[in-house]
């Protein structure tokens, strides 16, 4: 990947990585740090990475940076009982996307990761497996569990509203 292609990758994928990190970390500053760290790591290896693989490589790097950050900060990693996302509230909302993003915060990190990669970035199961270092069967299981959890959350909200 040339410097020009690297800069193109910044234009095309930085927003996606930022959203991906923001949904995990629930903190804008931390999400920006993850983006910078991700691109710094990729720049070091940019001569070994083709532009076609850049997006996958970026999200893989970002994912591991997020995991490292969560482990270091011990902020809700793997327990699934998370607090609120910055800028969102827990009050019932009629906006399905707001409800879904509230529900997303109740998911374990790995389920959140696979759903975000699936819905935000449109990755297929094989690509998600490569990024999250899982196999396709595991990805499918996590996505199915996440969908059921999201559906159960929406159903409860619908009953309340």
């Amino acid at each position, binding site marked *: 990947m*040339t*410097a*020009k292609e*690297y*800069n193109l990758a*910044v*234009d095309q994928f*930085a*927003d*996606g*990585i*930022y*959203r991906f990190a*923001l949904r995990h970390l629930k903190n804008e500053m931390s999400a*920006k740090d993850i*983006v*910078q760290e991700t*691109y710094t790591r990729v*720049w070091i290896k940019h001569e070994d990475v083709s532009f076609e693989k850049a997006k996958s490589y970026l999200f893989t790097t970002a994912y591991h940076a997020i995991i490292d950050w969560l482990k270091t900060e011990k902020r809700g990693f793997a327990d699934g009982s998370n607090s609120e996302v910055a800028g969102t509230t827990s009050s019932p909302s009629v906006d*399905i*996307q707001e409800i*879904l*993003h509230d529900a*997303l915060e109740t998911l374990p990190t790995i389920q959140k990761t696979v*759903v*975000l990669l699936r*819905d*935000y970035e449109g990755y297929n199961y094989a690509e998600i497996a490569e990024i999250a270092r899982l196999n396709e069967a595991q990805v*499918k299981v996590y*996505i*199915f569990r996440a*969908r*059921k959890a*999201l*559906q159960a959350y*929406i*159903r409860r909200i619908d009953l309340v509203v």
Partner: protein
Amino acid sequence: MERREINSDNYEAFYLDYLEGNLSAEDSAQLQSFLLLHPELEVDFDDVPPLSLTHTLPLHHDFKKGLKEVDLLNDSISEQNAEEFIIAHHEGLLSKQRSEELIHYLQTNAPLQQLFHTYGRIRLEASTQDIYPNKADLKRKSSRIVPLLYLSGAAAAIVVLFLAYRFNSAAVTQDNAPVTALKKSEPKTEKQDSGGKTSNERQPFSWNTSPIDLDHPFAPQQSQHNTELVPDLRINPEFQPEETPFQAPEIALETPINTPPIEENIQTVASVPLTTKENSPEFVNPIFPVTNVLTNVFNTEVDFGTTRKEVADNRGFYIKIGNFEVSHNARK
């Protein structure tokens, strides 16, 4: 079989048997009596029920169901696995045929239809407001790693350019002028014809075949070629064609036709290193292409040399621009 009595030395063995459920009811009652008589042992008999496999955690009734895999290709759709098929449908994992089967199955089940529509809404959409603001800070400028040798050459070239600028205007006598300068100062012999073509190109000699004006046979003719280069073919009044046979004038050797073009001369001279030190076994010019270009640009001999590595005693360098020369010699 003699029955053992429980005492302070063996009560722990009885107690372990009790915990494992291996103690008989009679022995258990005896152990309980013993522990009540010895409270200093701090063993609470009543709060510790015997362990039993029947006291393990109860399995959730859906536990086995959760372990089972639904074969999306072959399993028939039922109320138990319909949710899996619905999710698979929205994930795009079902074939067209299986999707049609699912839709057909749901037509008879209103709660599952509601579930189908609910799952259809579960698709996260990225917010367009979440944009990384500092993309410019992430971008990199393309840079090439310049070898140290090139940097050294560039630095030397800058020095040479500076010196050339300073000393190029110094007095250089005509006798000592470099060959290139002499070549350029020569009067140009190339002429242009009316068509714009230069006449100094190597061309075979040809006679002037311009028609002669018979009314004014002695008037000078306007030749297309330079009169210095083209033989004068005006008719001599004393010309007697019957008495004197025609002879071509011998003019070929007097014309500068064989002179090579000026540009060829310059290039040939410039491509040859002018310095004598360049060919010296003691010196080597590491930036010969640079000095060669400078020589051509300024029409002045520009040379630079450093002592070869093999010369261990004398280490030094020299810079030569025209007649100006600076050298440094450091003896070890």
